[in-house]
């Protein structure tokens, strides 16, 4: 049986892992490769590296980091944050990333999706969507979740799949960092409507939240950062618990 994937996310700033909540109170959390290897040992199914480096100059360090990760880890990994062009994607894939995720740049110019898919294939392209409920509607946000757009979440996801993304990573801004569980409603809507896998993100605080997003919202994968970084729940413990509770995971 195809398993549900658990994906730890590492926030990267200038080549180092940072820990924080809501992009605030960021603390240095060490070398990303060391942390990545620890997650691999604990049974991570994939890894995601999200570059939150503020300045363009410091972004050069990302390519070096991707290369070091590719040398060290034996599972697939995705790199995202600030990707704007086909050339950016080529650089990261050549350095050894298995997939890239795009967000704001694709909202501003959706043809970026077509171009990346045509060059490198849909299997390496993840669309990250930051969503929030506004007056009862699910709206797409950009620029790190700070700026609202005209787009409706389900429509945008469907258009992106049509254009060629291979996966959707859906982050609920309302749930992110709150540790009260994933956004089951919008995640469930997307998993039912789309022909590609959905990675749920934002809100993991307890093991039950993963069970719910897999069994109720039927997400193919779940991504979390804080719950693993701060040691609230260990990855291996989580996977064993999910297995005992009837969720198909890789042990």
């Amino acid at each position, binding site marked *: 049986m195809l*398993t549900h994937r658990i994906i730890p996310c590492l926030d990267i700033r200038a080549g180092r892992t940072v820990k924080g909540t809501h992009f605030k109170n960021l603390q240095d959390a060490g070398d990303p490769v060391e942390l990545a290897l620890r997650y691999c040992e604990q049974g991570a*199914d994939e890894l995601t590296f999200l570059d939150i480096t503020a300045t363009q100059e410091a972004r050069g360090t990302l390519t070096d980091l991707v290369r070091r990760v590719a040398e060290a880890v*034996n599972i697939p990994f995705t790199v995202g944050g600030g990707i704007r062009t086909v050339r950016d994607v080529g650089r990261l*894939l050549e350095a050894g990333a298995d997939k890239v995720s795009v967000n704001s740049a694709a909202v501003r110019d959706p043809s970026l999706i077509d171009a990346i898919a045509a060059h490198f294939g*849909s299997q390496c392209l993840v669309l990250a969507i930051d969503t929030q409920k506004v007056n009862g509607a699910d709206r797409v946000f950009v620029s790190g979740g700070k700026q609202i757009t005209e787009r409706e979440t389900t429509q945008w996801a469907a258009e992106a799949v049509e254009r060629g993304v291979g996966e959707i990573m859906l982050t609920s801004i309302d749930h992110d960092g709150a540790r009260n569980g994933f956004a089951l409603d919008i995640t469930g809507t997307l998993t039912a409507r789309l022909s590609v*896998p959905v990675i749920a993100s934002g809100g993991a605080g307890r093991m039950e939240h993963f069970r719910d997003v897999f069994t109720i919202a039927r997400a193919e994968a779940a991504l979390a950062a804080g719950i693993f970084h701060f040691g609230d729940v260990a990855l291996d413990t989580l996977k064993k618990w999910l297995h005992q509770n009837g969720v198909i995971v890789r042990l």
Partner: protein
Amino acid sequence: MKIVIVRYNAGNVLSVKLALKRLGHTAVISDEPDELRAADRVIFPGQGEALSAMRYLREKGLDEVLRKLQQPVLGICLGLQLMAESSEENNAPGLGLIPGRVRRFPDTGKVPHMGWNNIRRLRGPLFDGVPENSYVYFVHGYYMECNPFMTAEGHYLCPFAASVQKDNFYAVQFHPEKSAATGERILHNFLTLT
């Protein structure tokens, strides 16, 4: 040991090279016929579209070189599919090394088949020390039908050949270079075939 990874404009060959490096081996990436012929092991990876990959192999004359290799050859993902007789993907012809057909997954679920899935009915030296139902990482929209040369069976929407072997030609549909310890064991087994 001289290991050559075939370069043919079809996806990520770097990850295979790095996986071999973690196992302590240096591999060369090449599309030179003489390099392929002189290798102790040839790895034929690949992702992407079957027809354009076959065209490229033909243009370079690599199709004939691959067919005549006597040393152990390992096809990975698209590499496995190109070893078949034909593929439904744009009606691409295959190298015809393994009697089998490649078909598109039915529309009854999400395609591609992506993620960790288990493999069973394991046999042959590639799976030495690999327990039944081990998990490996797949990314593919087409599959080789089960056939007498199958050495591992996968299941997604329908049963399919997760691995096949005929003579010196070995192939896996999944990505051993991204399949954690299980994948490393399979690569190790390939490199230590006697």
